């Protein structure tokens, strides 16, 4: 830092940090810009990496670490839109690594129920067995997966880990073609009705053995009486039948995660973007202002009158900027408009397929990350 000549007692110790205009303990503005903003230039974005190392600025005496109390003070969530199936919210003060973890967990590791085993009794339609079974697996089912357990290979299917649906459609000879939609899937709360053909000695007294072993009806759970289990959308086309064709099958839905197969993903998709920031580096007046406003396809800019017939461009809606870079395309525009992204402000969008509402999905995803950490901690100790 400061250079001192030893032995020359007359020389005062001089440090540049003692000068009155150097900010103490803070980064100079150009470094702060590098640290917190992605600069989206015409050719490519720069400063995209987040500077995470706690000692990155130790040579100028600035501590880059975000201690837990700092994080708790600066972290904010703002919900912009919340519907039954989708939500948009802002997370401010978090790093991209953690936001990405939440996104990955939402897509791949939050469990749902989806149809896995299809027992086909009769299928004379033009849709093949396996194609029909595949389509059935992709139908989203409106049931809370937290009320069920996972089923492993050695388990018997019972009321705690399976949901049974029946599909029986027949197109009579002489009637026009019918379309089989997902509302034909009927929930069987008492378990499977298809009887297993056991070989020799079947006990004639008790009930015939079926493919599931329900000890009690699922209707005894009050949650299912209020909201009976059904596919979320009743108008999904499963198959089409001509006259004389019939489909009779039973489908078993189990709990799983999106990592195994995408049918178990609880979100249509979940994504985030960083908050765009549009800065006018110099005053854009009159004709240039009109040109700037007309260039932007999403109307980020507005014109304001500053008297005497002069106009000036202002940034009205930076949040809707899609970073198409039209406003910096021509000559000289790059020195008038700067496009940036704020590195720790994320606009999250979650679109649920219907099993769980989106705010519950996000809470579950955060819980799953906590469980992962706990597993690592217990392994280490």
């Amino acid at each position, binding site marked *: 830092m400061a250079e001192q000549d030893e032995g020359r007692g007359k020389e005062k110790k001089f440090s540049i940090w003692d000068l009155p205009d150097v900010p103490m303990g803070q980064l100079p503005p150009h470094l702060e810009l590098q640290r917190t903003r992605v600069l989206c230039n015409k050719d490519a974005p720069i400063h995209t990496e987040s500077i995470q190392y706690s000692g990155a600025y130790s040579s100028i005496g600035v501590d880059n*670490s*975000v201690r837990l109390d700092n994080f708790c003070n600066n972290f904010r969530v703002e919900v912009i839109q919340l519907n039954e199936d989708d939500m948009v919210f802002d997370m401010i003060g*978090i790093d991209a*690594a953690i936001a990405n973890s939440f996104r990955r967990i939402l897509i791949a590791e939050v469990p749902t129920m989806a149809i896995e085993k299809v027992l086909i009794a009769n299928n004379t339609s033009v849709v093949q067995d396996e194609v029909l079974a595949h389509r059935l697996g992709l139908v989203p089912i409106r049931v809370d997966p937290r009320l069920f357990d996972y089923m492993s290979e050695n388990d018997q299917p019972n009321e705690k880990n399976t949901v049974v649906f029946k599909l029986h459609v027949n197109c009579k000879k002489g009637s026009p073609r019918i379309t089989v939609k997902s509302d034909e899937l009927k929930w069987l709360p008492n378990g499977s009705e298809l009887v297993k053909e056991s070989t020799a000695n079947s006990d004639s007294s008790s009930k015939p053995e079926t493919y599931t072993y329900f000890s009690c009806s699922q209707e005894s759970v009050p949650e299912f009486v209020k909201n009976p289990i059904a596919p979320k959308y009743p108008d999904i086309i499963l198959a089409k039948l001509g006259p004389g064709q019939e489909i009779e099958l039973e489908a078993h839905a189990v709990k799983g995660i999106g990592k195994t197969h995408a049918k178990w993903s609880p979100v249509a998709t979940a994504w985030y973007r960083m908050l765009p920031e549009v800065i006018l580096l110099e005053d854009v007046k009159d004709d240039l202002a009109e040109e700037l406003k007309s260039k932007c396809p999403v109307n980020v800019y507005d014109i304001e009158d500053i008297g005497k017939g002069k106009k000036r461009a202002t940034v009205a809606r930076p949040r809707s900027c899609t970073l198409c870079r039209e406003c910096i395309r021509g000559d000289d525009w790059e020195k008038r408009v700067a496009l940036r992204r704020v590195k720790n402000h994320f606009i999250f969008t979650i679109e649920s397929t219907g099993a769980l509402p989106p705010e519950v999905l996000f809470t579950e995803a*955060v819980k799953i990350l906590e469980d*992962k*950490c706990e597993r690592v901690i217990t392994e*280490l100790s």
Partner: protein
Amino acid sequence: MEHGSFSDNSAATFSLTDEDHTLANSVRFTLNQDPRVTFSGYSIPHPSQARVNIRVQTTGDPASEVLKDACQDLMLMCRHVRSTFDKAVEDYKASNAVKAMKIDSKEEDSSDSEDSE
């Protein structure tokens, strides 16, 4: 599973099974924020195998302690995120309920009402 040296326990590689970028990147971030850490990184030896190697080098503290502290920090951050999010959702729902009531009462008041959004 920890791979290190017996004499110097300030640097070690931790091999976690059944993990991928989801946990490893977040743990690497919290490790970097700890001032005792001089180096932290993770790698995935093969994408078909669900295994992650996390390397931690510290300024003297045992690496496993530092990793444990980082995981604890991450857990606390997650809990804070969860509580802040729940509170924000509640506030939003409450303010929306108030807005809906206000709109309803406004519609009742004005007899021939134009579009009131």
